[in-house]
């Protein structure tokens, strides 16, 4: 009897906490849940508002008309975004072609070949590339890279003029190639960091199997490391692609901002992101122009969503295969 009364306080068991004491817990839980939910709501809101503001342009030209018409003429109020889309794709493709092999080479070198003491410093230096802001890359590209590369570009265009699209034609200062080159430099850190993680988690028994058969170092990399890392490296490259597609400031400074589909590698062009940055000032008063720019932003957004979605799928597949979580961008940038 006495034991029973000792365990109650008033009409409540000592084991129960008072409703007041439980309040902070519930407040915290619901507060944080709300916050997380707000993030979701935010993104939905994003897309909806963007669409609403872009609607005038879609109404006038149709969604397909807007995206695929090859005619962006501000003065006449015609907004077909195809040259922008093509320019975005060309510069991003160039960024991949130039950047991915270099990034993967760096990853393999750092993990498999370089002396242990150099690993940390080399990794850090590659990651430092990400610390340089986009506008600084643009500044450097405009006043250092473009003038210094112009003679080489001219020589290249002349020597290889028989290759369609690569050669022939006048070499402009700012052009697709410089745009692709700068983008390649900017996606290097992210592609390299993720590739490095992927290559580092190749199981040692795979590598030992290759070595024990009498493989040289490169043969071991080719037989055991690269096939295993394929999915992860593809994912890393697609993340780089997503980054390249959305990059604005550096590109707008070096692409020439000509709303046309340039017909060779060293021609001027335009990208979706660049047109928004460039023309927004003057579009403030023109309702249709502004809607067109926002529509371009929406197209850009959807494009990055698709590419990044695919990229995540690849990276997740690689993570699952290796049983690890590959470092998120935030920690590396």
């Amino acid at each position: 009897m006495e034991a029973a009364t000792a365990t109650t306080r008033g009409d409540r068991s000592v084991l129960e906490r008072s409703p007041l004491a439980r309040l902070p817990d519930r407040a915290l839980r619901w507060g944080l849940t709300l916050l997380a939910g707000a993030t979701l709501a935010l993104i939905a809101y994003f897309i909806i508002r963007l669409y609403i503001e872009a609607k005038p342009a879609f109404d006038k030209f149709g969604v397909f008309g807007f995206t695929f018409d090859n005619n962006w003429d501000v003065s006449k109020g015609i907004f077909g975004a195809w040259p922008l889309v093509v320019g975005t794709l060309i510069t991003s493709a160039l960024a991949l072609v130039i950047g991915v092999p270099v990034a993967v080479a760096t990853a393999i070198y750092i993990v498999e070949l370089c002396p242990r003491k150099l690993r940390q410093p080399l990794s850090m230096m590659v990651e430092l590339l990400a610390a340089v802001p986009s506008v600084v890359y643009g500044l450097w590209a405009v006043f250092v890279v473009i003038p210094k590369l112009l003679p080489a570009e001219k020589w290249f265009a002349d020597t290889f003029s028989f290759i369609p699209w690569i050669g022939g034609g006048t070499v402009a200062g700012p052009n697709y190639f410089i745009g692709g080159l700068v983008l390649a430099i900017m996606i290097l850190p992210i592609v390299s960091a993720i590739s490095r993680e992927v290559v580092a988690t190749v199981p040692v028994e795979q590598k030992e199997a290759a070595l024990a058969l009498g493989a040289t170092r490169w043969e071991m990399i080719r037989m055991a490391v690269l096939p295993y890392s394929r999915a992860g490296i593809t994912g890393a490259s697609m993340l780089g692609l997503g980054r390249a597609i959305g990059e604005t400031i550096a590109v707008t400074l070096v692409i020439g901002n000509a709303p046309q589909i340039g017909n060779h590698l060293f021609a001027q062009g335009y990208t979706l992101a660049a047109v928004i940055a460039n023309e927004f000032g003057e579009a403030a008063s023109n309702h249709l122009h502004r809607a067109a720019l926002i529509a371009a932003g929406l197209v850009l957004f959807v494009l990055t969503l698709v590419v990044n979605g695919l990229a995540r799928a690849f990276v997740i597949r690689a993570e699952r295969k290796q049983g690890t979580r590959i470092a998120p961008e935030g920690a590396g940038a």
Partner: protein
Amino acid sequence: MTTLQAVSPRRRRTDRIARGLLLAGTIVALVPLVLVLYYLVKKGIGAWGIDFFTTDPSGRFFGDPGGIKSAIVGTVLIVALATAIAVPAGIGVALYLVEYGKKSTFANVVRYFVDVLTGVPSIVFGLFIYIVLVLGNVGGNFAGWKGSVALALLMLPVVTRASEVVLQLVPDSLREAALALGAPRWRVVARVVLPSALPGLVTGSLLAVARAAGETAPLLFTAFAVKATTLDLGTQMNSLPIQIFNDVRQAQDRLVERAWGAALTLVVMILLLTLIARLFQRRSRLT
């Protein structure tokens, strides 16, 4: 008697060439870094001076272009406000994901969308804030704080992802020990989880700040740009990236010189933040 089967010279050559190419690729990757830093210092140091940091841009095309005081002040204020918004929110979402949501469907959906946010181009953030806050005429036209909101949107997923990783590294045994002692969940979070994760959280947040400090596009049509120094976030404000961007586009010698000086300033600020972030990372007992 054994003679080993010789390794063909072709294989040896391929091995050497392949390894050489991999080394070459690594060097190629580092060349831009060296070049950028070199030119920044070479062309930027010349612009530095007392006047450079203490006068505002004059807006004059000829004659004295002025310094970058308003840009520095603007960047500091805008980024500070963005940090004040994004860091608590980001850590909060991460806390939710690690402590409460865990593997639930809702939590996974949140994670997925936070991932989506990391891939959004920064100019789209600027557009969005422009539509909602500027067009919507919320508290006036362009304003510094609107730029902060755009930057905060950009920082949020970065802080959340990095914080989630760090919080997950706090061993469950620590949490269980505290809970077993009868501590309520919120206390466990406040007194056990957050303190052990603190250095890692600081690292993640500082890296996000460094990233935001360098962003131009979100500020283009939100904070806009003015020449004079202002401390009022409710009005248009200058910022380093915008200042550099405008100077580059004008392409006039003295303005370009100022652009280099401003770029050097900005990169120094970012490198300092990154360095401090990495120092905190070393002090973390978790990573």
